[in-house]
């Protein structure tokens, strides 16, 4: 069954307006500091969180390897909002209360929705609108990564690719950099027609992080 709210909110990001905004702010960010790609990526990411928080749930971005050193804690190292300092405090504009979300995003709030900064650090925009950045290891999938860091993300079938409850939303530009999902995963994305806009992503047995690393690290550099 179509979940109109989710379809609608996910589709919003796929508009020309946002694509233009994406390009514009990416280019602008790169102007600031040509040598520090990571900085630029952060800028761009923060902009998008801020903007999309007002209209849709969130999105997921891939960027260059992060220069930040992880703080080790309980198996997986964690990083908390280091990015805020580096990007001139833009992150402070990110709403921390779900009340700033519109009705649409409240409806999808049972799914945690994320922003992936790079192939090791992953930022999750949580249900209350706050961001949590954690570091991943090769082979971890985003569901396990979320759970091992106490980030709420429904996963009814415990990652066996059987239930499609662990949807996330990612930025289209980066979604397209991923390899085609397997037939099995693609089939799951049909459930509830959540992938009408190719924005939602099921995170079960698919190792997105590994997957991305294998794919083309250079593609990130090419963004410049």
């Amino acid at each position, binding site marked *: 069954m179509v979940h109109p709210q989710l379809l609608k909110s996910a589709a919003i990001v796929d508009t020309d307006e946002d694509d233009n905004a994406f390009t514009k702010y990416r280019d602008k960010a790169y102007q600031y500091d040509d040598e520090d790609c990571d900085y630029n990526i952060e800028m761009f990411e923060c902009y998008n969180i801020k903007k999309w928080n007002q209209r849709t749930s969130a999105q997921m971005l891939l960027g260059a390897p992060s220069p930040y050193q992880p703080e080790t804690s309980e198996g997986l190292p964690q990083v908390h909002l280091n990015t805020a300092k580096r990007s001139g405090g833009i992150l402070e504009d990110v709403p921390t209360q779900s009340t700033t979300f519109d009705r649409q995003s409240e409806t999808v*709030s*049972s799914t945690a929705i994320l922003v992936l900064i790079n192939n090791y650090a992953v930022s999750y925009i949580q249900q209350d609108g706050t961001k949590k950045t954690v570091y991943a290891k090769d082979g971890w999938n985003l569901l396990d990564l979320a759970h091992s860091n106490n980030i709420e993300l429904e996963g*009814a079938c415990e990652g066996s690719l059987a*239930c*499609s*409850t662990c949807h996330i939303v990612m930025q289209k530009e980066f979604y397209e950099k991923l390899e085609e999902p397997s037939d099995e995963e693609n089939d*799951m994305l049909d459930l*509830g027609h959540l992938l009408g806009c190719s924005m939602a992503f099921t995170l079960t047995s698919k190792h997105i992080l590994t997957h991305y690393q294998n794919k083309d690290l250079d593609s990130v550099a090419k963004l410049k």
Partner: protein
Amino acid sequence: MFKVAVIGSGPAAFYTAQHLLKSRSNVSIHMFEKLATPFGLVRFGIAADHQDAKKVANKFDELATHYQKEGRFQFVGGVEVVGSEDADAVANASLSQRRLPFSLLRKNYDVVIAAYGAESAKTMPLKQGRAVSAHDFVQWVNGHPDSIGHSDMFAHHLEAETAVVVGHGNVALDVARVLLDDVDSLRRTDVPDNVLQVLAESKVRHVRLVARRGPFQMAFTAKELREMTKLPNASYMPNELLSSEPYKSSDSLPWLDRSPKRLMQILHGSGDAKAIKSKSWALDWYLSPHQILQDENTKSIKAIQFQKTSPVSSVVPFGSKIELVPNEFVDMPCGLVISSLGYTGLPLPNCSEDLPFDARSGVIPNIQGRVIDPATKAPIEGLYASGWIKRGAVGVIAATMYDAVETADSILADLETAKPDASKQGFAGIQAHLGGKAVSYDGWKVLDEHERKEGAKRGKLREKVVDLKSAMRIIDMGDK
């Protein structure tokens, strides 16, 4: 503390409860279940060969255990919520069937949520003969208490070589898989032993899945259809309709949605005439069931007669409201007919005055989960619906999860401006009426452990206790 009563204990009930419990610390939930066991269709509906999908019960178990410890969750099993007059029979009710008047729930709880699902199978209108219901078949394979004693009946049904399943939804595929797959693939699951015995003796070799409408109206999900095309023991026999337009070039049809496109892709990429396996299955479209034809002497089924239909030619055969023209009759030889036309909700018995119900659509009328008075359209305070009884029997567990969150959000918004009503006594107000002990969550855990132990002895996940009385005895002995 806001006192919340949930009627039902399936995914809709648990997801609604989860969202409420996690969002507010001043909410306590009592979950009323007609059967002795929680989890609804996770236990009795999800196909036995889809054990992965049943893992969601672990999540619900964690939730129940956690919040029971906190004193904010209680499972009240073996208690059927009914209308007042029915409940008067409470003194006569058997141990396993306690009844509770709905009005008493309303009186004692701030919030009452109907999340009891859609438990009735839609019947197939036939001029003559009666089809087996896929609902009954699935319940039997899943060891539902209502299927007790059905094994002999199904043993008889499964003497047929060809089975026709009417309906193109996932339940039809669940049925077809059980009929076609090697029974050995189910031996380590939770299918009851006596069901496995019957399935092992099954003579069914060929299954035809038939629908009144066309290929673009198939309600399968891609995952289930793909799984079907990959059955190790059963070949898919392609229907030549798919080689004709517009079905042949479904990939390039701009007006076709992604979902039917993918289903067509799967079918176009399947079916290998060279690799004939011991069993087979096929899909047929545009056939409207008319009557079942029996052998005059043996009274056994020999065929099902369909009326051929075709889509109105001026219209593309797309969308659920497709218009069909009736044509000639055609007989399809078979020994078993199973109808799988979906489910519909039922009203709570004799509760029509207190809990509105729309008989036409089989749901409780509501706006975003707030139950409304059908006449005035005004929300009825403190009354909500969630899951299939709220929106109809469509969608997988993920859809129910979103749906439950919507209802929970409505409740949370309403509670913002409300204060707990001191006159609502919660469980204390209904306990006397129950006339005995209901099944607690700990009681269920006793049965759960028993089933797992019995299963382990047999090399299975669990051996379900199908008989409700036996289940109650085990629970009573273990849960002092």
